[in-house]
C-alpha cells in the first residue's frame, strides 16, 4: 500500500493519496480562521486572529506540540506508538531545571534519549507491543519523578538559555518557532533523504519484508524511539523555559494532541505511510482550533466535543482504511 495508483497523467487536477489529507487539513485551517475572524468581527469589531503578531504567538505555543508530534510521527510511521511522552517531557524538564547551568539542556535531552532507548530495547528486542511497554515506562518515570520531587513542583528554575529558547525573539520571530523549524528540517531530511528514513517507512509497511531485505530492523526501531524520546526531552526543556519552572503533569496535555496531529496530517496509525508536511499542518490545525475555541470562551465540555468531532470528520474525509476483505 505504499503508493496509490492514481493515474496522474490522465487527470489534470488529480491529487495523490498522500497529498489529499494535507490539502483537506489546510483548507480546514482556513475555515477555522474564517469562523474565528467572523466571531471577533461581530463581537469585538477587530480581526485579531489575522494579525501577524497574534499568529506568531499562537505558533510559538504550538512549537512545543510541534516538537513532540515530530517525534511521535517517527514512531507512528514504524507502526508503533509512544505513550511515555507525558512523563518523558516532565522528567526532562525537572532534571534540566535541577541540574541548571550550561548542562541543563544537554541533561534534558539525555533524559529523553535514555527513556527512548529503554522503550526501543523493550519494543525491538523483547517484542512487547509498544502500546503497553511505553505505558509501563511512563508509569515508572512518573514514579521516579514523584519519588524525586516529593510530589510537588520542584523549586528549581529554568536557566536563562532555556527561557530564551522558549520565549525569546529574533527580529520579531519567536525563538521557539525557529527551534521547531530546525527540528522540522531535520525530520524531513531524515525521512526523505536518509537510509534510516526509508527503513522507517519500510518497517511500517511490512516488518518481515524489511527484515528479509536486509534492513537492521531492531536498530532502526531503537533509533526511532531514541529520537522520539529526545524530541520529547527537548519539548520538556523548552516548556520548562516557557513557564520558568518544571511542574507535575506538565506533559499530560501533549500526548493525545500529538497523536491527533500526526493522524490528522494523514499518517496511517498502523505505520508505513504519511508525510511530515501533514504533521506540520495537523499541529497548526489543532493549535488554531484551540485558540479559536478559547477566544469564543467555549467551556471545556464544548471543547472536548468539538475536538473529537473534528478528528472523526477529518478522518472520515480521507482516513478511511481499505477494507481487509476486498
Amino acid at each position, binding site marked *: 500500500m505504499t503508493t496509490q495508483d492514481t493515474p496522474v497523467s490522465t487527470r489534470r487536477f488529480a491529487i495523490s493519496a498522500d497529498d489529499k489529507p494535507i490539502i483537506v487539513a489546510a483548507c480546514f485551517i482556513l475555515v477555522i480562521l474564517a469562523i474565528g475572524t467572523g466571531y471577533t468581527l461581530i463581537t469585538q469589531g477587530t480581526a485579531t486572529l489575522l494579525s501577524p503578531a497574534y499568529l506568531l504567538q499562537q505558533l510559538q505555543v504550538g512549537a512545543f506540540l510541534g516538537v513532540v508530534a515530530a517525534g511521535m510521527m517517527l514512531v507512528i510511521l514504524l507502526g508503533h*506508538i509512544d*505513550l511515555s511522552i507525558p512523563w518523558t517531557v516532565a522528567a526532562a524538564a525537572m532534571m534540566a531545571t535541577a541540574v541548571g547551568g550550561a548542562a541543563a539542556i544537554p541533561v534534558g535531552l539525555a533524559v529523553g534519549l535514555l527513556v527512548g532507548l529503554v522503550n526501543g530495547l*523493550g519494543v525491538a528486542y*523483547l*517484542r*512487547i*507491543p509498544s*502500546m*503497553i*511497554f511505553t*505505558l*509501563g*515506562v*511512563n*508509569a*515508572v*518515570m*512518573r*514514579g*521516579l519523578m*514523584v*519519588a524525586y520531587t*516529593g*510530589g510537588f513542583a520542584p523549586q528549581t528554575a529554568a536557566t536563562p538559555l532555556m527561557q530564551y529558547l522558549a520565549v525569546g525573539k529574533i527580529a520579531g520571530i519567536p525563538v521557539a518557532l525557529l527551534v521547531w523549524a530546525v527540528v522540522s528540517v531535520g525530520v524531513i531530511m531524515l525521512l526523505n533523504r536518509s537510509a534510516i528514513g526509508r527503513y522507517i517507512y519500510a518497517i511500517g509497511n511490512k*516488518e*518481515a519484508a524489511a*527484515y*528479509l531485505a536486509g534492513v537492521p530492523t531492531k536498530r532502526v526501531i531503537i533509533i526511532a524511539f531514541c529520537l522520539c524520546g529526545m524530541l520529547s526531552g527537548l519539548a520538556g526543556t523548552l516548556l520548562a523555559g516557557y513557564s520558568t519552572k518544571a511542574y507535575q*503533569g506538565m506533559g*499530560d496535555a501533549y500526548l*493525545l494532541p500529538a*497523536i*491527533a496531529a500526526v*493522524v490528522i496530517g494523514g499518517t496511517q*496509525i*498502523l505505520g508505513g505511510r504519511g508525510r511530515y508536511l501533514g504533521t506540520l499542518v495537523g499541529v497548526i490545525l489543532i493549535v488554531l482550533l484551540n485558540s479559536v475555541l478559547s477566544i469564543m470562551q467555549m*467551556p*471545556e*465540555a*464544548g*471543547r*472536548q*466535543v*468539538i*475536538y*473529537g*468531532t473534528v*478528528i*472523526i470528520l477529518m*478522518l*472520515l474525509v480521507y*482516513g*478511511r*482504511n481499505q*477494507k*481487509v*476483505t476486498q
Partner: protein
Amino acid sequence: MTSATYFSDLKVRVAQNTGLCLVIVGFIAFYVFYNMNHPRGFSTAVYIQNSNEVFTLAMVAMAQTVPVLMGGLDLSVGAIMTLVNCLASHLLSGSPIQILLGMITCLATGALCGFINGCVVVYGRIQPIIATLATGAIFMGIALFLRPSPGGNVDGDLSWAATNDLFEVAATYGLFDDGKAAWFQPIAWLPVPLLLILITAAFIWMPFARSVTGRSVYAVGSGEGAAYMSGLNINRAKLAAFTLGGFFAGIGGLYLALQTSSGNADIPQAGAYTLNSIAAVVIGGTSLLGGVGSAIGSIFGALVLRTISFNFRIFEIDPLLQPLFEGVVLLAAVSLGALSVLRVKNTLESFR
C-alpha cells in the same frame, strides 16, 4: 470420562491458558499475603472494602477486553464510564420505579456509546485506536456538560445496599426477615460487588463468548481475512464487541456513582481508568494482537493491580514510592510475559 482422560484434558486446558493460570495464582498469593498481614484480615469488612475498590476497574477492564480480543483497542472506556457515572448521578433518585428506569437508562447509554464506537469503526472504517480517541473526547465533553462540577444525588438505600454484603441488602429492603432467616446466613457475608462481578462474568460474558458472535470476535482478532472467508459476519462481530464493551463500562460507571454517591467528570481519572484497563487486560493474559484471552483474565488482572496497592497500605510504604512500585510491577509483568520471545528460533516468527 475416566480420570486419566480427565487429567489430560485438564493439562491441555492449563497449557492453553498459562497466562490466565499465572495471574490467578499471582492474585491468590498476593491476596492471602495481604490478609495475613492485615490486622483484620480474612474478615467480611475487608472483603467488602476490597471488592468495592476493585469493582469499577474490573468492569472497565472487561470492557477493554472485548475490543482487544477483536484486534482493536478502546481508548474511550474511561470516558464512557465517566459519562454513565455523571448520568447516574442525575437519575438514581426518587421512587423505586424511577430509580429502576434510571439504572436501565444508564446501562443503555453505556451500550449506546459502545455502539457508536462500533459504527465509527465499522462504517467509518477508521482505526479503532484513533476512532475511540476521538469519540472518547466527545463522551468526556458530554459528561462535563452533565456535571460541570462534582456532585449529584444518589438514593441512599440503594447506595448502601450495593456497596455492602448481602445481609445489608436484606436488612435495607426488609427481605428474608431483615436478613435473619436461618437459610440466608451461609451467604449473608458475601459482598454485593463481588457477586455482581460473578453475575456479569457468568451470565453476560460467558454466554457471549460461547455464541457465534463471540467466537467471531475471537476469529476476527486472529485473522480478519480468514474470518471473512469462513463466512463469519465481521461487521456484526465488531459492532457487538464495541457495544458489549460500552455496556461493561456503563456498569462500571453506574457502580461508581453508587459507591461515591456522586458524579465526577474528571478527565485525568477517566484517562487513568483507560490506561489501567489496558494494563489489567495484558496482565490478565489477553494478547494485544487479538484473538487470545478472556474477560475473566482481565478481572483477575484488575484484582492483581489493586491487590498490589492494598499491600502498600499494609506495609506503610512511603506514599511517594508507590507510583514507582506500581510502574515497576506493571513493566515487570509485561516483560515476563514477553520472555517467550527468547525461545523463538526463527526470527521471522517474531514478526506479526
